[in-house]
């Protein structure tokens, strides 16, 4: 590690910014630095993980004596200007495009800040500056993403310098597995993949199975369209996931584990692979890393394009090299999983929350967002505690018709409105928000009138949606709800594994029914048929995919029924 340089440019090297030309910009910056005769010691330029505001990429942050500044949407031609700007002292920040700002006329060109009284006309990069004090950044509480955007995801030393693996080391050397699980129970952490099952309870279930081998699996098959939280973690801080997974392995007594990542994330796969190589180059998780001869072995498995593999029993099938078809539960994987051994499966974000929970303590985590809770319930401290609550932070990916798209990590319990309107800036063009789609194809829609709903598991579920994995797609006034429902049903038709009848044949019939509504050719009886079939598919499907496939239909029916009624022809054909 070189000593912290007086000035440093952090170039976002996560896939959104890469797609927007981040790589070329970084190379141009390196060339511009050389051209300016500056040394890496005086101006460091490095790749980092996600800088959050993905919609304005490529993002570059500068750290200097005057604090941090952020630019978005720069082209390689502007590299020299940026090097000069980073080198000179920081000036006061400018406003991020405010919610009242007019929509970008042609999106690739950045929005000039509407209210930029401080803009010095002499700064040629003024219109590319993004305000780090904007709520989009200032309301975030990075826990899972604490090092994301600060460290080079390909560099183990940087991760170590930020404390990576220090909690794993502490666990292995000083804590019993029971003590680790106790801390996780106290945190009240619940599965971040969507189901919200208490993590501590799941760990206990695996740990307390009869003696024998156990396995751990990190589920990185993030398939919900509109969700990219796990990708952010994997691309920005892969060692964080590996540490969380290793701690989980310690806590349940596993010596083998897998990270399963969807094949659609090539950059995440490459970074994980490198991270795993870095570990094995240092002798694995044994003596070199933890000071004890602990034989933990972690392997990477790559999916091949199947949404259903996010379902845990299907994921196990896929890891074993088979068709990703779910099997009935019980037995749960925690009882009988890979090769018949008890297997712990946790979502990537869940595992990435583990190291800070151990560092700061479960109570610290449980206190996050506690002030937001409607009921003053106590943090879940025991496996049998009835009140689960929604504690800690959650990463959401904000996209759709919203002004500021990107990744946010906020305390649970925050009102949805704060995320969508205050942080996200509302709908592009200043139009009103029509609804917010959460939970992907398993979730539903929260209409604008209910935007004050708190982001917590129970509150969202009570509205017929779900907190889900964290995808949040903002819908403007032009999105027709039957069309949205048809879109998600089409997704489920495509992704149904075909094993059980209701999901295989029922979703096809539901899609056909919805087609009639989209075309305005439905009859009143179709609405009954739609609801009856939704109920049947929901109740009788084998796995979560089928059981939740009708949710987008049911949620839009619940909150936007008039749109369905309007799509019915006035009189039935036979009248």
């Amino acid at each position, binding site marked *: 590690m070189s000593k912290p340089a007086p000035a440093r440019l952090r170039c976002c090297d996560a896939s959104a910014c890469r*797609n927007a030309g981040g790589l070329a910009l970084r190379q141009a910056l390196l060339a511009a630095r050389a051209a300016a005769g500056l040394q890496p010691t005086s101006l460091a330029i490095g790749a980092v993980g996600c800088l959050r505001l993905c919609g304005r990429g490529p993002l570059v942050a500068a750290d200097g004596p005057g604090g941090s500044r952020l630019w978005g949407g720069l082209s390689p031609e502007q590299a020299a200007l940026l090097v000069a700007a980073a080198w000179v002292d920081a000036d006061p920040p400018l406003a991020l495009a405010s919610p009242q700002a007019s929509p970008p006329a042609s999106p690739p060109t950045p929005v000039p800040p509407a209210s930029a009284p401080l803009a010095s006309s002499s700064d040629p990069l003024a219109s590319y500056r993004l305000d780090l004090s904007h709520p989009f950044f200032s309301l975030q509480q990075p826990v899972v993403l604490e090092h994301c955007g600060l460290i080079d995801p390909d560099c183990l030393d940087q991760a170590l310098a930020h404390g990576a693996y220090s909690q794993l080391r502490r666990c292995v050397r000083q804590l019993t597995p029971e003590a680790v699980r106790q801390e996780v129970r106290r945190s009240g952490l619940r599965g971040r993949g969507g189901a919200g099952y208490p993590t501590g309870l799941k760990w206990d279930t695996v740990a307390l199975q009869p003696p024998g081998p156990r396995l751990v699996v990190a589920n990185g098959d993030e398939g919900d369209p509109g969700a990219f939280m796990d990708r952010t973690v994997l691309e920005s801080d892969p060692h964080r996931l590996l540490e969380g997974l290793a701690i989980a392995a310690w806590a349940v007594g596993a010596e083998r584990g897998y990270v399963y990542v969807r094949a*659609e994330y090539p950059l995440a796969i490459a970074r994980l692979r490198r991270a795993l190589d870095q570990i094995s180059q240092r002798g694995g998780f044994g003596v070199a890393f933890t000071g004890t001869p602990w034989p933990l072995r972690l392997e990477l*498995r*790559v999916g091949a394009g199947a949404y259903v593999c996010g379902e845990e029993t299907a994921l196990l099938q896929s890891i074993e090299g088979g068709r990703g078809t779910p099997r009935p539960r019980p037995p749960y994987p925690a009882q009988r999983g890979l090769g018949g051994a008890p297997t712990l499966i946790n979502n990537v974000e869940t595992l990435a929350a583990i190291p800070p929970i151990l560092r700061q303590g479960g109570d610290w985590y449980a206190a996050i967002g506690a002030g937001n809770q409607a009921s003053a319930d106590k943090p879940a401290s025991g496996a049998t505690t009835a009140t689960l609550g929604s504690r800690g932070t959650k990463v959401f990916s904000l996209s759709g018709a919203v002004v500021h798209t990107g990744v946010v990590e906020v305390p649970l319990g925050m009102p949805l409105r704060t995320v969508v309107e205050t942080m996200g800036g509302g709908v592009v063009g200043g139009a009103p928000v029509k609804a917010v789609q959460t939970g992907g194809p398993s979730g539903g829609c929260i209409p604008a009138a209910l935007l004050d709903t708190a982001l917590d598991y129970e509150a969202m579920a009570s509205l017929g949606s779900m907190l889900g994995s964290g995808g949040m797609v903002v819908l403007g006034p032009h999105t027709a709800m039957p069309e949205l429902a048809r879109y998600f049903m089409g997704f489920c038709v495509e992704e149904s*594994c075909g094993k059980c009848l209701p999901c295989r044949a029922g979703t096809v019939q539901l899609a056909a029914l919805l087609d009639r509504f989209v075309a305005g050719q439905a009859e009143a009886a179709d609405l009954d048929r739609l609801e009856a079939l939704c109920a049947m598919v929901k109740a009788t499907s084998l796995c979560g995919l089928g059981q939740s496939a009708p949710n987008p239909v049911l949620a839009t029916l619940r909150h936007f029924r008039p749109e369905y009624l309007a799509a019915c022809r006035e009189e039935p054909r036979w009248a």
Partner: protein
Amino acid sequence: MASIGTPTQRGCSGAVAGDREAITRLIQLQGDDPAALIEVLHQLQQIEGYLAARSLHQVARQLRLPLSRVYGVASFYHLFRRTPPPVHCCAVCLGTACFVNGALELLAVLELRLAQQARAGGWVLERMGCLGACGSGPVLRLDQGLAIRVRLAPAPKLDAQLEAIGLPPLGRATAR
């Protein structure tokens, strides 16, 4: 590994479905482990561009798996191809964010536009699940590259943008 799931540059004519020894070695590297079937198929597709029946047969034999099991897995996952890849592929992301920003309308435009080109050889239009580039939708994948923010616009403007990102110009239906 970085190009997993993306069609290789080799088209039908260039596909080499003959290097039996290379396949043998890659399966051996996986320890002849039946649980590595998916990884083996990934690497096989990397080499040959698609999963030819002959190669699947070899995989089954070497991993000691039933043929129908191998075929069942190869046909279950979207990213495995059982036919040679097209010379050029334009895939439209149909993730929710892209959908909200007009991906379906874009798909319709591209369908019309590429209808001629498809006949002339070369371009194939595909639909694709969410790429996770939700911040910059609608997104197209053109062969190896990604085109972002391909928003629906009046014809001349959109045509110009599509041409700029590498689609064949209208009217001149030739493969690049």
